[in-house]
C-alpha cells in the first residue's frame, strides 16, 4: 500500500461529509460527519429490509397456501406468479418497477387523488400525515394493551390445559388493542389531526406536493421488487412445509372432530413451521443483501451513500469497503440469530 501511495486510517469518519442525501430517517445535512452519513445509509438499508421482509412474508404465506388450494383457478394463478417472478433476475425487476412503471405514472399536477388525498405521482407517493398531540400517552396505552394481551393468552392457555375450555383469544386481543388506545382519546387528552399534501408550483410546468408524508418512488419500487421476488421463495418454503406433514396427521385431526381451520392452526402449521423457518431465514438474508441493488435506482442505502459517495469523496476504499462488509455480516448474523431463536422455540420438544 505504501508503494501505491495509499494511506490507511479511519480518521475520515469524523470529517464533514459535505454531500446531501435525498431521503433520511434521521436529521442529516452535508455539514454532518461521514459517520452520520454511514448511519443514514444503514437506517435506509434497514428500512427497506424490514419492509421487504414484512411484505414478502405476508404475500409468501398467502401464495404458499394458495398453491395448495383445492380451487383450480387460485392454485394455477399462484403457480404462475411463483414461476414468473422467481425466474427473472432481480435487478431487471427493480429496473422494471423503477423505470417502466415510473414512466407510466402521472406528473404531480396531472395526478388524480385516490381516496381523497393520496397521490401517486412520478415524483413519489404522497399521503396525508398525522399530527399528534400527547403522542407519548398513546404509545404507553399501546404498550399496556400488548401486555394485557400477553396475560390473556397465558390465562387462555391455562384454561385450555386445565379445564379444556376454549376462549376466542384472537378476538379478545384485537378488542383490547383497539379499546385501550381509543380510551386515551377521551380521557388521556390525546388528539390527532392530519395534514394534507398540497400541490405547489415551482415553475410553469413543474410542480410538487408539500405537506403530508412523501414516499420517494425509489423506496416504493425497491420494496415492491424485493417483496414480489422474495415472496415467491417464501411461498415455496410454505408449500414445502405444509406438504411435508403427512396426510395421516390431517386425517387423525379430522377424526377427533377438529374443523378445517383448527386443523391448519393447531396441527399442521405448528409442525410445518419447523420445516418452513430454516429456509425462510435464508430468504430473509438474501432480501437484506439484495437490498444493496438499491444503488442502481438511486435509493440512498448503505452501498450508495457510504460505499458510493463517501468512498468517492474520501478515496478510503479499503476502510469503507471493510466497514460495509462487516455491517452486512453483522446484519445477516443478527437475522440468523433471531430466526434460530424462533426456530428453537417452535421446535418439537422431545420427551
Amino acid at each position: 500500500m505504501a508503494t501505491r501511495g495509499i494511506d490507511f486510517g479511519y480518521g475520515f469518519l469524523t470529517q464533514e461529509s459535505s454531500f446531501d442525501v435525498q431521503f433520511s430517517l434521521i436529521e442529516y445535512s452535508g455539514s454532518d460527519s461521514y459517520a452520520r452519513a454511514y448511519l443514514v445509509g444503514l437506517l435506509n438499508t434497514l428500512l427497506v429490509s424490514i419492509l421487504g421482509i414484512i411484505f414478502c412474508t405476508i404475500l409468501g404465506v398467502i401464495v404458499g397456501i394458495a398453491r395448495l388450494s383445492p380451487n383450480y383457478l387460485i392454485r394455477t394463478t399462484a403457480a404462475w406468479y411463483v414461476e414468473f417472478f422467481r425466474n427473472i433476475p432481480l435487478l431487471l425487476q427493480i429496473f422494471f418497477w423503477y423505470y417502466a412503471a415510473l414512466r407510466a405514472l402521472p406528473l404531480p399536477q396531472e395526478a388524480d387523488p385516490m381516496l381523497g388525498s393520496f397521490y401517486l405521482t412520478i415524483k413519489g407517493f404522497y399521503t396525508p400525515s398525522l399530527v399528534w398531540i400527547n403522542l407519548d400517552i398513546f404509545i404507553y396505552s399501546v404498550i399496556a394493551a400488548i401486555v394485557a394481551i400477553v396475560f390473556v393468552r397465558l390465562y387462555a392457555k391455562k384454561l385450555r390445559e386445565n379445564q379444556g375450555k376454549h376462549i376466542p383469544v384472537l378476538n379478545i386481543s384485537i378488542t383490547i388493542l383497539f379499546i385501550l388506545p381509543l380510551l386515551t382519546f377521551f380521557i388521556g387528552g390525546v388528539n390527532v389531526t392530519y395534514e394534507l399534501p398540497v400541490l405547489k408550483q415551482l415553475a410553469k410546468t413543474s410542480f410538487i406536493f408539500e405537506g403530508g408524508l412523501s414516499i420517494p418512488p425509489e423506496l416504493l419500487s425497491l420494496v415492491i421488487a424485493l417483496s414480489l421476488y422474495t415472496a415467491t421463495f417464501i411461498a415455496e418454503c410454505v408449500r414445502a412445509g405444509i406438504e411435508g406433514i403427512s396426510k395421516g396427521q390431517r386425517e387423525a385431526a379430522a377424526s377427533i372432530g377438529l374443523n378445517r381451520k383448527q386443523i391448519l392452526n393447531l396441527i399442521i402449521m405448528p409442525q410445518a413451521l419447523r420445516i418452513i423457518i430454516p429456509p425462510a431465514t435464508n430468504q430473509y438474508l438474501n432480501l437484506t443483501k439484495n437490498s444493496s441493488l438499491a444503488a442502481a435506482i438511486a435509493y440512498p442505502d448503505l452501498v450508495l451513500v457510504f460505499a458510493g459517495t463517501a468512498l468517492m469523496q474520501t478515496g478510503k476504499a479499503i476502510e469503507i469497503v471493510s466497514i460495509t462488509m462487516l455491517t452486512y455480516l453483522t446484519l445477516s448474523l443478527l437475522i440468523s440469530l433471531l430466526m434460530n431463536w424462533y426456530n428453537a422455540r417452535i421446535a418439537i420438544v422431545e420427551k
Partner: protein
Amino acid sequence: MFKNIKKILSLLAVASLVFVYSCDQMAGKKNQKKGASKTVDATKKSGFVKCGVSQGLPGFSNADASGNWTGVDVDICRAVAAAVLGDADKVKYTPLSAKERFTALTSGEIDVLSRNTTWTLSRDADIGLTFVGVNFYDGQGFMVRKNSGINSVDDFQNGISACTNIGTTTELNMRDFFNSRNISYEPVAFEKADEVVAAYDAGRCDTYTTDKSGLAAQRTKMSNPDEHMVLPETISKEPLGPVVRQGDSVWEDIVRWSLNVMIEAEEYGIDSQNADMMKSSDNPAIKRLVGAEGELGAAFGLDNEWSLRIIKQVGNYGESYKRNIADTGILPDRGPNELWTKGGILYVPPAR
C-alpha cells in the same frame, strides 16, 4: 465449536502475516535507479498502455458499435501509446464508473486515468494520485425542460429535485450552490450516467446537473433532445484532465508532456498532415517538437521522435477537439478551450 473458531482465527492470523510481508516486499522495491520507471517497463513488456476511460460520454470517451474508442480523453491514451510504444492503437481501454475510477488507478489495474476527471485539491493530495494537466476546461451547469418556464438558476424554488451522478464533484458543488442560495432541494443520485439520463427524461427530476460538456453530450441521448436546454449559468470550475498514480515521476512526466505536446503543436501550426515537412522548418521550437533538433525524449528514456509520433498518429489538440467535439455537434464553440493566443486559456509550458 470453539475448536473451529480457534482454527479460523489462526488461519486469519496467517493470512494477515502473509499480507503484511508482501506489502513490505513491495515497499522494498521502491528504491530504484533514477530515470527508470516501473510503469514504462511494465507497459513495454505488456505491449499496451492500460488506460481508464468513461462508460460512454460522447466527445470524451465513447465506443462505437465495433468497439473503437474515440474522444479527446481517448486521444490522451493514444498519445501516450504513440510516445512509449510507437503505435497509438496499442491501448487497452477499461471503462470505469465515477465511483471505480480512482481505486482502479491506485490498485494498478490501469496506469493512466483519462476520464473527464476534475482536478481538485483533495483528490490531488489525499488519494495517492497526481493530476498532470488539463485537457478540457469545463464548468457545472443545469439542464431543464424548455417548457418548464425556468430560464435561469434564479427561477429555482424550494423543493426542486435534481438528478445527478454519485461520486462526482457535481454532488458537492450542487450542495454548495443550493445552500448558498438557501434553496431546499431533493438530490437524486445514480451510479451510472445512463440511469441519470433515463430518470430525468422520465420526469423524475426537474433538472439534471453535471459538467456542461456532459450536459451537451447527454442531451443527444434524450428521447427528444429539442425539448431540453442548458441554463446559461456555470456554477463551478471543472478543469478536467488525465491522472496518474503517485510515485512514478517518469511516467507522470511522459503523460504530462504527451498532452502538452499536442497543445504546443497546435500553437506552432504543426498537424498530423504537415508534421514530416516541419522537420525542415527554420523555427528551432518547431524542429524540437518534431524531433529534428535537441534531445527532448532522452529525459524520459524515450527516443527523439516520440513527439513526432504523437502529432502524426493522434494529431494536435485542435484536430482532436474538432474531430471529437466540434464536428459531432456537442460544443462547436471552443470557448475557454481555445489557445491563449486566440483568446482562450490553453497555455502550456514550452517544450524545450
